[in-house]
């Protein structure tokens, strides 16, 4: 091979860069799925757990628009067959009163950092 003194170091850098995730996690403990602290007094969230996992941000976004722009305040939950106040702090954080052990556990793992808390309280 010609110019091996340039090409070989280049290929070593290439291999190191593209295997970054493999060696970055070396020595770290094997990844465990997050454990969440769920509210004890209730069995269910306001919608099904699967729905909440994928759609809670959309739900909050809709609530915000409906509350702030259209002035409605109540959300009818088919699952629970009851009304909930469309409020981030007064509803979600009423049951999930431990942001660090609930919301943040998931968000930290996926580099999600909702800016909502710049304005909203974490406790009712």
């Amino acid at each position, binding site marked *: 091979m010609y*110019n091996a003194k340039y090409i070989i170091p280049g290929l070593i850098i*290439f291999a190191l860069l593209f295997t970054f995730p493999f060696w970055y996690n070396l020595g*770290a403990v094997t990844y465990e*799925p997050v454990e969440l602290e769920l509210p004890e007094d209730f069995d269910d969230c306001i919608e099904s757990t*699967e729905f909440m996992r*994928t759609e809670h941000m959309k739900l*909050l976004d809709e609530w915000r628009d409906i509350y702030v722009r259209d002035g409605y305040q109540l959300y009818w939950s088919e699952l629970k067959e009851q009304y909930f106040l469309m409020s981030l702090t007064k509803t979600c954080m009423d049951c999930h009163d431990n942001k660090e052990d609930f919301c943040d556990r998931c968000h930290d793992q996926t*580099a999600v*950092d909702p800016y909502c808390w710049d304005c909203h309280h974490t406790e009712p």
Partner: protein
Amino acid sequence: MKAINSLILVLALIVIAMLGAGALGIEYLFGVIIPYLAVFIFIVGFITKMVGWGKSAVPFRIPTTCGQATKSLPMFKDKWSRLDNPGTKLGTIGRMFLEVVLFRSLFRNTRVELHPGQYIAYSSSKWLWIFALIFHYTFLIIVIRHLRFFTEPIPGVIVFLDQVDSMLQILVPPLFISSALILVALGYLLLRRFFVPSMRYISQPADYVPLFLIISIVVSGMLMRYVGPFKTDLMPVKELAMGLVQFSPTVPEGIGLTFYVHFFLFSVLLMYFPFSKLMHMGGVFLSPTRNLPNDSREKHHPNPWNYPVKLHTYEDYENDFREKMVEADLPVEKPLEEMAEETSENDEKKE
């Protein structure tokens, strides 16, 4: 037709992932086996290709006409020639760096225009350069941001990049500027092939397939993030990704089908990479018009594959046969007497 066939090919890949991971339920194949295979093929294929290129002949230095070589007549004052046509190693490193980081050659892209009266004019055209730049950098940012699925704890840089990229705070989850821009750039790169007649003429499936593949990866990713029925829970995705990089693969429950489509298309891209024009990623470092300093007037560059030839010069030949040549009346360069004198002189010196 070439574009349509390429599109059908990529759509078929999407259907394969949907049937395999969805209808047939062989998630392990699409989530573990194919991705591992893809990474292996990518890295080994890339290195093999580069070594193969390294073994082929390196041409003679190619002086490009963009500037005078460093050592030129005193009247040429152009200091850019140090980058355009460098004669030194440092200048060549500079030229390579700007080529790789800023695509300087694309910056010189020109457009041919035919004016009335059969005039041909060349004018500068920077669109390709600017959209290529946008495409490559947003792609890089997206790939780095995706490392959030493959690292734990997530390095601060990645979290920071995530925040900067989503700083517009429109939509929930917030729109990433990079994923919006990459769509615009990909759109340009594709439409260019559709609507510029000369581009359309030379475009092959090998040009369309990578474009459609990357567009599908980006669209499936954005669907997964923003659009209701395609959304997926990211926690099991992280579990799967971490399982892969820590060599304890698992296929957790609850990953949406969109993810498998996204992941399968990505695996195909990796496998296709070493065999496609995408290898310009490594190839750019081996471009002979960019990486060879123009120093053929200062340095001797022996042909590296010269066969070691046994030499017998005319001088040696005459030395061997001088007496016989003189006897046969053949002309010689050094007459016999001189030889005799020289030898006698040498003899005297020895004494």
